[in-house]
């Protein structure tokens, strides 16, 4: 077997004060895949990323990235990171192209003087996220989705083998979401490992090949089709989700016992369909648009329509 691009063996992270954020995490991720990291807030998604990025040193276990230690992997520009954009100072006097250029610093000499190839990489990265025409803008002048795209471009400019994205779909418009998903597919087709943390359940089947379910430790990891099941999600989220089930006897008067299950934490829901409340993931993008054209629902209406609400 070829070694994974990221291999975590029995990794534990304990914060000062004895708070165990991760315990015995075993995870192997390969190149050319898009893997979703799913878990509730506080499950340790950010800590897992921080461990891979070397911000947190595991109290136990070992992380190897393309056969290197974390430190070496960062030195070699193997890992690119797209942060949540909340903690950025948007008033910082810096233009879009300057931000993307910082992604090239690891490839430059000590003086960080941009060569032609760096400038080309910046242009190409901006082009790929459709932000080239905004290159001379101060970053605070952009919309939420545009800001996110700039940071994705910065990671692209780094031309890394691994791209980590922390909740990339929060606070962005649907157009950006679609273009990011297309971009992830392109990247993985070219051998990049795309590792995305999200608590947005419904979007996972839309763009992930694999999913890793996390609650302090990896509860399940594998292809979306088999691993992203109701049972695994219940294990992961236990009681923290809104959970709606509709069975055949409510929907129609025949012997069909199949049911619909809707799992949501108030974002795009996960819909499962079949016996015992569903084994099959319902993919919804087309449904979305047809529904939207008829009557765009307001959030309130949406919730009232749901027949039952409650935890597991």
């Amino acid at each position, binding site marked *: 077997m070829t070694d994974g691009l990221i291999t975590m063996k029995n990794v534990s992270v304990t914060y000062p004060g004895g708070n165990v954020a991760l315990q015995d995490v075993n995870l192997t991720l390969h190149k050319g895949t898009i893997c979703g990291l799913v878990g509730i807030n506080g499950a340790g998604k950010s800590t897992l990323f921080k461990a891979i990025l070397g911000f947190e040193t595991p109290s136990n276990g070992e992380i190897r990235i393309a056969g290197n230690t974390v430190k070496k992997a*960062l030195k070699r*520009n193997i890992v690119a990171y797209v942060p949540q954009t909340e903690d950025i*100072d948007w008033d910082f006097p810096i233009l879009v192209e300057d931000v993307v250029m910082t992604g090239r610093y690891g490839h430059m000499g000590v003086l960080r003087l941009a060569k032609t190839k760096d400038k080309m990489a910046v242009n190409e990265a901006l082009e790929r996220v459709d932000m080239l025409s905004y290159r001379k803008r101060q970053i605070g002048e952009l*919309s939420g989705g545009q800001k996110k795209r700039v940071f994705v471009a910065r990671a692209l400019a780094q031309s890394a083998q691994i791209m980590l994205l922390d909740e990339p779909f929060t606070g962005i418009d*649907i157009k950006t979401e679609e273009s990011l998903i297309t971009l992830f597919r392109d990247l993985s087709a070219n051998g990049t490992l795309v590792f995305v943390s999200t608590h947005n359940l419904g979007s996972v089947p839309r763009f992930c090949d694999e999913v890793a379910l996390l609650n302090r430790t990896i509860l399940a990891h594998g292809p979306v089709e088999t691993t992203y099941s109701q049972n695994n999600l219940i294990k992961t989220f236990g009681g923290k989700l809104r959970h709606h089930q509709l069975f055949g006897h409510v929907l129609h008067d025949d012997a069909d016992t199949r049911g619909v299950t809707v799992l949501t934490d108030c974002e*795009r829901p996960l819909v499962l369909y079949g016996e015992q409340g569903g084994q099959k993931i319902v993919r919804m993008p087309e449904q979305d648009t047809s529904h939207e054209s008829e009557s765009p629902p307001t959030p309130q209406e949406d919730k009232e329509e749901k027949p039952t609400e409650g935890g597991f």
Partner: protein
Amino acid sequence: MIESLLEPFTYNYMTNAILVSALVGGTCAFLSSYLILKGWALMGDALAHSIVPGVALAYILGLPYVIGAFFAGALAASSIMFVKKITRLKEDTILGLVFTTFFAFGLLLVSIKPTAIDLQAIILGNILAVSDSDIVQLVFICTTCLILLILKWRDFMAIFFDENHARTIALPVGRLKILFFALLSAATVSALQTVGACLVIAMVITPGATAYLLTERFHKMIILSVFIGTTTSALGAYLSYFLNTNPGGLIVTLQTFIFIVIFFLAPKHGVFAQRRIMRKQSNNSALPYGDNITSLPVDNQSIFSTNTGEQK
């Protein structure tokens, strides 16, 4: 007329004072571009007050004052970090606590051995009375600072803008931060000589704050800030000859004067410019940011679809 204008330059001490002030002003201004962006403005003040006992002690023991200043600064910085780690006190409280303690100790030292040190020289500074050996020290400190800043300004920018990203591209964040504080302490020590402990803060804030109003690119901000710092310092020292005033007070007054002018007249962030934008906005209420937005290819669709898209 011209003869009397050139008169200060016929005195060796005046020429020295003007040149050294310019050098110190430029160095402090370079650092100010960083300080004001991080909310660390008061750090300069804290350092300036904290090094007073070190300087006093060095004078008493007959050592170069730089050594005393350096140790006092390092001690102050580490006590700030230590107290912060142990207690839950807020940063400004700790800063206030530590630097007043150090300053008080410094005053105590000075009053114990009044003949050895000119108290006024430390508190108010007087570049006109600086000895030749001190001038050599000042020139050495400032040129070293400036060279290091010019070599590393991009790295510092990357860290100040997004520290986590700087780590993922394997910049030695910890070491660079220590270097930055070392440079700041060194610049503070030299500013102590020119404007005194009480006014150092102005030297490491005002030029950067003024430049910030004028530009949206970091390297331009540095250039403008250094220009303002250098010219006001040189001019302050020069004018003090005619006005027979304390040069420190004059330098800071000049810097403040420029800030006020820019505050009103800055092309985009000035008071008048903001008014103009507001007026335009009320004339043309369809465009939320006045003429700013007309050149902006806003993706209306994405703004429109943000809400409807997210709830699915």
